[in-house]
């Protein structure tokens, strides 16, 4: 029988809000461009989609009753567009890969300016702290539709700690 996955519901909500704000601070976004939560326009846009929720990956209780949980929040960012040329496709892929690097706190160069995320934002729920955001895949073409619209996708996962006393 497969093990039951425990979801940290409060954590999932807190992460979704903070992550959406963070994604919209990505310096690679064009002026007026906005990352949307779990939705995309029919022909264009960037959307952020949680894959499942924040799954409890590890739960450790110390001898003092202090509990440390490590939770994993997988998500993907989808860039929808109708590129006409290979160069446009390359630009979309490059943008998503750059977003991934930026979220990993690596330095990225956009329009000859180097940016680096210095710290992850604080989560408002309990003692939850974002530890890492990492890519679980490079950007790739996920879907191509008959009208020329394509969905480019990058998969990432966010890890956070949650601490409390029992």
């Amino acid at each position, binding site marked *: 029988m497969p093990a039951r996955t425990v979801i940290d519901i409060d954590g999932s909500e807190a992460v979704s809000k903070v992550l959406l704000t963070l994604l919209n601070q990505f310096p690679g976004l064009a002026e007026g461009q906005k990352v949307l939560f779990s939705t995309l326009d029919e022909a264009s846009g960037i959307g952020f989609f949680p894959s499942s929720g924040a799954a409890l990956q590890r739960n*450790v*209780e*110390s*001898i*003092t*009753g*202090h509990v440390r949980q490590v939770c994993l929040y997988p998500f993907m960012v989808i860039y929808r567009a109708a590129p006409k040329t290979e160069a446009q496709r390359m630009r979309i892929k490059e943008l998503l890969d750059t977003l991934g690097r930026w979220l990993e706190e690596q330095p990225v160069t956009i329009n000859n300016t180097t940016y680096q995320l210095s710290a992850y934002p604080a989560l408002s729920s309990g003692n939850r702290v974002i530890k890492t955001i990492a890519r679980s895949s490079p950007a790739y073409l996920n879907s191509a539709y008959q009208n020329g619209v394509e969905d480019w996708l990058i998969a990432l996962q966010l890890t956070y700690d949650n601490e409390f006393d*029992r």
Partner: protein
Amino acid sequence: MGKIERKYLAHYIDASFGGTTEYVRLGSDLEEYNEELNPDVEVKKNILGEQTVNHNGYEVQSDVDPYYAEEGDDLFEALAAIANERKTGDDCKTTKVDVLMQADGTVVWAYREDVKVIPNSLGGDTSGVQIPFTVYNAGNRTAGTWNNSTKTFTPSNP
């Protein structure tokens, strides 16, 4: 009668190492902590088939591993001083208090004992600076009472 939760058996170390007593609780990073009694027992059988048991006491010690350094942690600072200055002997001496409490905070028993605290390493992996150490009990075990609010031990027979 249910099991006693592990959190109700608390272990405190005096982080002042001879200064103004300041007990800090061990175990915020420990999933397990055992006071190993290491009994010195000799079992003999004579030619009549009779068995004798000589019990010569205990060599009590306990490992605190991992122990993560935290900013402003007095115990870490004391341990780091021992490690950095290669201190030995009584410079490593302090006291330890073991306390069993009930869920409502009532102290069931409390014992204080002299100990020597010896760091085993300094460094660790990327999870944070660690300074695991071993606590060697050095006798003078005394029963008493424990005030959980003030973190003070009072011997029963001073």
